């Protein structure tokens, strides 16, 4: 077989702490990257980009961001929708105020602005935890959506109250507005996803990741060992906010093009991303991808199977989706709180011994 751990010796601690310690995993990762960058852009069409790939890429960034906060640092947040809105509106204000500056910088700055806002709303976490913190972040969600609806400065006093992305290009290639090609938007989002995933992985395997997990697992012991809880929690909020802000900016500028804040970044969005993290796996980067892929693909697959093949009415299929997601959340919370990522780990562990488990 190709997939073997035996004989894959590490001779240095660097080799032991790399992202993919097993050779096969490493080659598979290179293959996936090559496929994503060199094959997909040439075969992509508008349907694939808009129905599956763009939402998957953007939700993956959001899920990684939320996973850092909830899965790694143990601070529950229901404000994801609101924080994505911060990223979207920051990006919009920057795009319209500085039309000549590159979109790459705007998206990164939108992430930075969201990080600052997120830290602000993360301050209560120093005093309260769990359920009460969830309610505090819920307040952030409603407050932010209300703010962007009520203060005309945020949507540049437009009559509709919406924000819509003007046409912008990166290195001469149009990436926003109606004239952007599927290839360009896909690659733009992919670059950000890869960057975010690498940063998340680097942070979580090192010192900062360990302080986050220490706070998550036992905050009192962590403090007595030397973890500064203020610093650990607020860096988690900042990094999480940075990723969520980037995803909000991309969601608005690249994917939708025009946004009405209450509709797009409402409480439903917070729950959707939280479900991705729970189903995918708390405390796992791979889980963030798996959860995002699952919840993006589920409606598409249901529609293809239910409406196109079985010929059921559309509304029944749409409701069926809610039923399935709800049931899955309950099943995962009870049976496997660490989600798809843990199922994958367990499967690998069993296969390692198969067919002689003893």
């Amino acid at each position, binding site marked *: 077989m190709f997939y073997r751990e035996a004989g894959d010796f590490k001779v240095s601690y660097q080799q032991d*702490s790399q992202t993919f310690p097993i050779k096969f995993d490493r080659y598979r990762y290179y293959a996936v990257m090559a496929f994503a960058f060199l094959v997909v852009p040439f075969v992509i069409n508008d349907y694939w980009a808009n129905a599956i790939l763009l939402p998957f890429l953007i939700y993956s960034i959001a899920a990684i961001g939320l996973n850092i906060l909830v899965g790694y640092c143990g601070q529950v947040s229901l404000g994801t929708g609101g924080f994505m809105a911060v990223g979207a509106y920051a990006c919009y204000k920057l795009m319209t105020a500085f039309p000549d500056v590159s979109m790459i910088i705007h998206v990164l700055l939108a992430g930075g602005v969201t990080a600052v806002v997120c830290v602000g709303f993360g301050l209560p976490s120093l005093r309260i935890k769990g359920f009460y913190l969830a309610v505090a972040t819920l307040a952030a969600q409603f407050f932010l959506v209300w703010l962007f609806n009520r203060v005309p400065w945020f949507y540049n006093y437009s009559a509709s109250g919406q924000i819509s992305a003007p046409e912008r290009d990166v290195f001469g290639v149009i990436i926003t507005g109606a004239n952007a090609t599927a290839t360009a938007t896909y690659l733009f989002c992919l670059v950000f996803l890869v960057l975010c995933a690498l940063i998340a992985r680097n942070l979580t395997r090192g010192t900062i990741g360990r302080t986050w997990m220490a706070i998550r697992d036992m905050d009192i*012991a962590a403090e*007595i060992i030397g973890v*500064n809880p203020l610093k650990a929690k607020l860096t988690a909020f900042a990094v999480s906010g940075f990723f969520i802000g980037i995803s909000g900016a991309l969601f608005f500028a690249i994917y939708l093009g025009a946004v009405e804040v209450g509709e797009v970044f409402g409480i439903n969005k917070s729950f959707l991303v939280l479900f991705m993290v729970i189903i995918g796996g708390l405390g796992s980067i791979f889980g963030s991808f798996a959860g995002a892929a699952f919840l993006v693909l589920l409606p598409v697959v249901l529609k293809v199977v239910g409406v196109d093949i079985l010929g059921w009415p559309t509304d029944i299929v749409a409701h069926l989706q809610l039923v399935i997601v709800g049931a899955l959340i309950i099943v995962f919370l009870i049976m496997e709180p660490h989600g798809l990522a843990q199922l994958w780990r367990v499967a690998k562990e069993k296969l390692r011994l198969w067919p002689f488990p003893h």
Partner: protein
Amino acid sequence: MLDASEGYTTEDGRKIGGVVMEMKNITLRFGGVVAIKDISFDIREGEIRAIIGPNGAGKSSMLNVISGFYVPQEGEVFFHGKKRPQMRPYEVARQGIARTFQNIALFEGMSVLDNVMTGRLNYMKTGLFQQALWKGKAEQEETENREAVEKIIDFLEIQHIRKTPVARLPYGLKKRVELARALAAEPKLLLLDEPMAGMNVEEKEDMSRFILDVNDEFGTTIALIEHDMGVVMDLSDRVVVMDYGKKIGDGTPDEVRSNQAVIDAYLGVSHD
């Protein structure tokens, strides 16, 4: 009683240095309950200092005062001759005081290696951006600290469970991992809160050996709480005895054993 400020020599010939930590007239109250009442004692460099007493005597509270988790209402704590200002527990940890807990307080979701690496926090200096890049400073720092951690893993003989999640380990090993995490900080003063609670004789012997080895090889000053009198009398150089928040005895194991107040506290006294 010992009064030489320059230290002393133990029966087995180890040299004990000057005072590392001195508690002066510590009083700790929780509302109306007085947990610790006007207690003074010192811990000297290189010694194994035991704190014993019946249940509820205030031993763990005393340890919590030393590690900065409780702030006493009265009294002063001197560390290396300097009065310690009021500080948060993580600041105390940075001064070189590490501890283990009575009920194991490991990070259950992390591997043994990650748990022990967390103990090295004081030596991690790279910032957020360097760690996000990983290559360069952060990786170098990780590797250097990993080497130090591997020495301790080696020392405590837990190599085989290095990558195992802590939640899967049996009790005895968890206690050992917790000791490893505390040792990883290379503490000047190591506090052990009932390191042998709930262990069988064999595990107790192992743990006693590790404690003596730590003291011997790294020269670490150790303060420990323990209920097993045999262990305490064998391990420790000096013993503080507490009862109902008061200090009722202080001295070498032999002195304490013959102290009438201590005998009364442990065996009871007739009221006729």
